[in-house]
């Protein structure tokens, strides 16, 4: 594992001057992932905050080749780039070692883009797909997604007189992708940069598709001060809301075990989107969420033991 001092000597591929919100997790994740690359890369992004904010014509924050096509097709778009690369390599028109990385939000990954992602994984393109999971459709104004946790208030799952925010649990996308039995799958957080960068390195070394699901704090959507993004991401890891693990060649491994496992309440308290859970009769939603987090954590412990 490279040290921060070593990493800091690398040329960064994402510039400042992009228009993501102050304290956004997405660009932190992009920077950490790209520091893991030792070859030239081509980036594909799906429609979403990252794509919109980094490529407003005539400005681009990308120093490397970049393509955005549409919302639901980052995986199939990157399939096309990787296919072209193989075609040119076969013809002897390039001998450049390259890697292909997709960045997409939870909307473009868990929901509208899951088909294209599943297809690309099954076909075996050598590419890394990174989901920056901010747990809702933030780009269009905080609508719920299948990554939104139980009880979170979004603009399409608002807390009201009869409903306590989102009434369903979140989908476990990392496990869905692991079920494709591709060479490398991991869950990471920008608050554990060394864990994230090592995972990105392993993902880029994999001789086939790799997938990383990375928790991406969103000050606007989660309702927290922008300076707390990293702290809140780490609290999600410690409460086991967002466990850090990898599935390398079908071997499940926990990459971080919290010393203490604080109650989920500690994480919920940090964000305005859960404020209603601490009022009225909503305590039971917190209990439900705790039970679900515990159950999934126990399952994960079994898989990784």
């Amino acid at each position, binding site marked *: 594992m490279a040290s921060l001092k070593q990493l800091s000597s690398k040329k960064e591929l994402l510039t400042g001057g992009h228009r993501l919100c102050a304290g956004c997790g997405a660009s932190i994740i992009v920077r950490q992932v790209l520091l893991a690359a030792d070859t030239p890369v081509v980036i594909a992004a799906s429609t979403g905050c990252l794509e919109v904010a980094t*490529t407003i014509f005539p400005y681009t924050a990308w120093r490397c080749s970049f393509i955005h096509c549409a919302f639901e097709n980052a995986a*199939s778009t990157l399939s096309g780039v990787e296919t072209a690369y193989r075609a040119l390599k076969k013809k002897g028109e390039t001998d450049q070692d390259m890697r292909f990385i997709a960045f997409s939000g939870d909307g473009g990954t868990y929901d509208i883009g899951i088909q294209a992602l599943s*297809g690309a994984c099954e076909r075996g393109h050598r590419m890394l797909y990174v989901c920056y999971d901010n747990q809702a459709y933030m780009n269009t104004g905080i609508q719920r997604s299948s990554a939104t946790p139980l009880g979170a208030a979004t603009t399409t799952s608002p807390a009201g007189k009869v409903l306590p925010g989102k009434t369903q649990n979140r989908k476990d996308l990392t496990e869905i992708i692991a079920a494709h039995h591709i060479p490398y799958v991991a869950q990471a957080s920008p608050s554990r940069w060394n864990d994230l960068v090592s995972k990105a390195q392993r993902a880029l070394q994999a001789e086939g598709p790799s997938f990383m699901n990375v928790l991406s704090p969103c000050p606007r959507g989660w309702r927290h001060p922008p300076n707390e993004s990293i702290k809140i991401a780490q609290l999600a890891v410690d409460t086991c809301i967002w466990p850090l693990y990898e599935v390398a060649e079908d071997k499940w491994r926990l990459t971080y075990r919290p010393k203490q496992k604080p109650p989920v309440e500690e994480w919920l308290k940090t964000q305005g989107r859960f404020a209603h859970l601490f009022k009225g009769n909503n305590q039971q939603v917190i209990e439900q969420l705790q039970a679900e987090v515990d159950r999934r954590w126990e399952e994960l412990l079994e898989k990784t033991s």
Partner: protein
Amino acid sequence: MGNLISMEGNQAAAEAMRQINPDAMAAYPITPQTEVVQTFAQFVADGRVDTEFVTVESEHSAMSACVAAAASGTRVMTATSANGMALMWEILYIAASTRLPIVMALVNRALSANINIHCDHSDSMGARDTGWIQLFCENGQEAYDSLIQAVRIAEHPQVRLPVMVCYDGFIISHAVECLELLKDNEVQKFIGEFKSVNSLLDISHPYTFGPLDLYDFYFEHKRQQIEAYGPAKQTVIEVGKQFGSLSGREYGLFEAYHLQDARLAIVLMGSAAGTAKEAVDRLRANGLPIGVLKLRAFRPFPSEELTQLLSRFEAVAVLDRAVSFGAAAGPLFTEISSALFASNHRPLLLNYIYGLGGRDIDIEDIQEVGKKLQKTAESGKVEQPFDYIGVRK
């Protein structure tokens, strides 16, 4: 004379693709296009092409992969039909607006609902505003020839637009015809080496494709794209001529059949043009001064050329194999009448909708149209501007 062989339209299309030998192909099977994909897959399996074949999980992904592979500096092809192209819709626009020279075989089929696997042109017509060049074919030979020409048209530096070669589902795709094929090296020589522009894989010149484009630049980008369809029209003509020198089969924006001395004309596209030619032969034998205008290039639409050609006619019938729901007439008619409006001399116009969902149109049906045209011309007025052929009352 080239190599004469009997084969189905879909096989002919697949054969053209084999000879073109694109760098990449991403496609998803759908009736009646399925055979194109299957045949091509066999070429891949037998090592008869160098193509990287991507067996995507949907047409949406097919077109997305084609867009990206084309943006990565490779020659790319695909094929689809009807609902498959409907699923590509969003990406069709992106392919054209990003100026990517993708070539697609579109085997024309009716759109759902209800689901129907047979021919009409509703798939093509729905995509007429996406920015793709659309060439319609009368038979398997034309589908084969046009696919080869499409590569040259799409990749012309002043064009750089995707091309769909449209041929009728089952009527052409599954009919066995005797075709004349070019030799592999003739095709390769004709299409030439692919020249990459702004490739994603050119790491010394990193480009950003598909950025957010707001009110300050989007309009200029569209204005620039509009300008490409003029050169596209010229290129369809030039490439068609050059293909003629190579094969003896010259192509243009349209084919005029017995129009020289005619005062009545039938305008239509696709396989029914063959039926119309036979009907016209019979009508002419009875002394009717009638001809056929078979339109090949629906996009770019040859407005000036058609106005010049048709304005001297007394009466013209436009046959549409698609509906534009809620519009006053079929999509081809709307284009033709709009083009003719610019002329001081306008023929009387009739519009017929025919052949939806694979309904047959026969020689007698078209002979009837010819007779109605004659009546219209004689009376000097249009009694029924819009009608149907072959639908039960």
